[in-house]
């Protein structure tokens, strides 16, 4: 049962991550792939606060979200000056740079990771309580983002994404939107981080490397960038798929690379056969970004 719970919890966490990522790159068109680092910031912050100050998980998670939101300024500010490909590379640099710091600080457990994060709940209820929390967080995130996108603010965001020059010429403030979107998206990732930290009680910096970015990106793109339910579909699919492959009864030595091959091959097929993703965006504007 524990096994099933941990999968449900991961689903919840990744729905939060994929949806918030989608808000940044799909809805707002801000090409940053540094999402895992905000996940990390939330996780490490709440974990450290719990270990050193005994802070309860809810406060800790909120603190983690706040930290992630504040750090997001380090991406949103450069994004005001650069865009497109350039922002992509900046975000990579930011993510890896911050990870390097985490890997070298004894405070964060350096390369060995942060372990012994105290758990707020012990006993048999742990599994289903955390599952509920994670899934609820996922649902809440999706609904929150849907609400943002459907409202007038959402239209402003789309307008900015589609033609920033015109947007600014009309007197709207693109800067503020970018900063807010990054902050909201990153804070949500921070919340996912808090949930992860308290359930798994162990964090390793390797989990937040470029490949984590690739995974989250794939969830968003395969699910359907710019749509509300797309990231949810993407998250569930990309968590369930490796499990499904396990049942193919491949020889164990080859399991991991074969799994990886099937996985990446499927992504490639998707990119070619259905680039708009599984769930088409509901927004009236077509999801075709002009190459900048």
């Amino acid at each position, binding site marked *: 049962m524990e096994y099933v719970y941990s999968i449900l919890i991961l689903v919840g966490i990744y729905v939060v991550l994929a949806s918030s990522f989608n808000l940044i790159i799909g809805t707002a068109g801000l090409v940053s792939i540094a999402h895992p680092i905000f996940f990390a910031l939330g996780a490490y912050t709440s974990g450290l606060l719990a270990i050193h100050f005994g802070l309860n998980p809810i406060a800790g998670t909120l603190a983690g979200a706040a930290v992630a939101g504040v750090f997001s300024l380090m991406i949103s500010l450069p994004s005001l000056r650069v865009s497109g490909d350039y922002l992509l590379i900046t975000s990579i640099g930011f993510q890896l740079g911050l990870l390097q710091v985490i890997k070298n600080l004894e405070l964060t457990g350096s390369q060995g990771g942060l372990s012994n994060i105290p758990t707020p709940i012990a006993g048999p209820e742990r599994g289903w309580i955390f599952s509920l929390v994670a899934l609820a967080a996922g649902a809440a995130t999706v609904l929150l983002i849907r609400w943002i996108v459907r409202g007038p603010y959402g239209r402003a965001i789309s307008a900015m994404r589609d033609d920033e020059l015109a947007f600014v010429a009309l007197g709207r403030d693109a800067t503020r939107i970018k900063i807010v979107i990054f902050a909201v998206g990153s804070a949500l990732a921070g919340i996912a981080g808090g949930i992860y930290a308290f359930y798994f009680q162990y964090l390793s910096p390797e989990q937040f490397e470029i490949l984590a970015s690739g*995974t989250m990106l794939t969830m968003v793109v395969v699910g359907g960038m710019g749509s509300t339910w797309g990231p949810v579909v993407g998250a569930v699919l990309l968590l369930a798929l*490796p499990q499904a492959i396990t049942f193919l009864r491949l020889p164990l030595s080859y399991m*991991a690379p074969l799994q990886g091959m099937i996985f990446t091959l499927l992504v490639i097929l998707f990119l070619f056969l259905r680039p708009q993703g599984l769930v088409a965006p509901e927004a009236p504007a077509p999801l075709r970004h002009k190459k900048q």
Partner: protein
Amino acid sequence: MSFKRRDVLKAAAAGALAAGLPLPLRAQGAGNLRFGLAMPLTGSQSAYGKDQVTGAQWAVEDINAKGGVQGRKLEMIVLDTQADPQVGINAVNRLISVEKVPVFITAWSAVVKAVAPIANREKVLELSVGASSPDVATLGDYVYTTFPLADVDVTAVARYAYQKLGKKTAAVLYINNDTGVDAAKVYREAFEKAGGKVTVYEAYDPKATDYSGMLLKLRASNAEMVHIHGLITDIPQVIAQMRQLGLKQRVSTYSAGYNPIIVKQLGAAAEGLIVTSLAPGANDRPQVKAYIERWRSKEGRVPNGLPYTQYLYDAPVMVAQMYDWLLKQKLAVNGENMRKALLGVKRFELPMTGVTEVDATHRVKKPVYLLTVEKGNFVPLATVS
């Protein structure tokens, strides 16, 4: 063993839930005495993980062939961890909640640490066999190591350098991850306690390939002994660059260096290298000689990380002895009682590694075997208890 060279391309999501299929060594029927084994069967550490699993499997076969434990067969359930914490967590969750084992064996520091909270929470005994990080001793009530932690062999090799080789000054070059950082501290403490002085104490990035800056600092310091604590992927490179820069000091390292690849890659530059081994060699124990022969005849080669496979052979033997105690005491089979059994037996006579004593310190003390490279081969140098 705490190889940290992680397979970056584990594809976070793909890897996260890929805990392969359980491989039970099912000797028919219920009433089997079950335990888990969580090892890297795939991924960058699989060459070592698979050989360790083989060692354990042979032990189970051998025990069952002799009638098992009080007539009941041992059953080992093997799951893949890829030496990755997330995959390891998944594997252990399965072992505990699906397979319901009271005790499991695992290795690789990152995994050992990641699953420790689960073991403590669920009160299932975790035996760490091979991870050397000193942290392992403080991971909780249900985590015990049967393998000596870094302080044992590093202390031995540091003292040997001062006391037997007469080196008064030493340099410590270590990889910047927790294996290296912890071990470097141990070396410095031991060397200075013995009376020497560590004049160079430098970390290098796991991804570095050019060590010249660090080595030139070494050259300027005239340290007499150099201890390198890294991985099999960088130790040869550091030594190679040392020799190319004209540095002729004798080099010591730990058990990761006890690998024929080093001699192949370095050629003559490997001469004099001192390595440690925490398991007796063929000349020290006849069972080990037979074991190596078994590898040669069945697999046509020597196992990767021979000493570690020895410990993995002994691990099911320990579990068998624990079950024996448990059954004699007529206690229920669960993690709590397994832990009692571990501390109850306390002193285990094991075929491949000799005597192992477990106590409340969560550590074990074993003799350290020092070897050196002479004419392209590893030959015994000394044994330190």
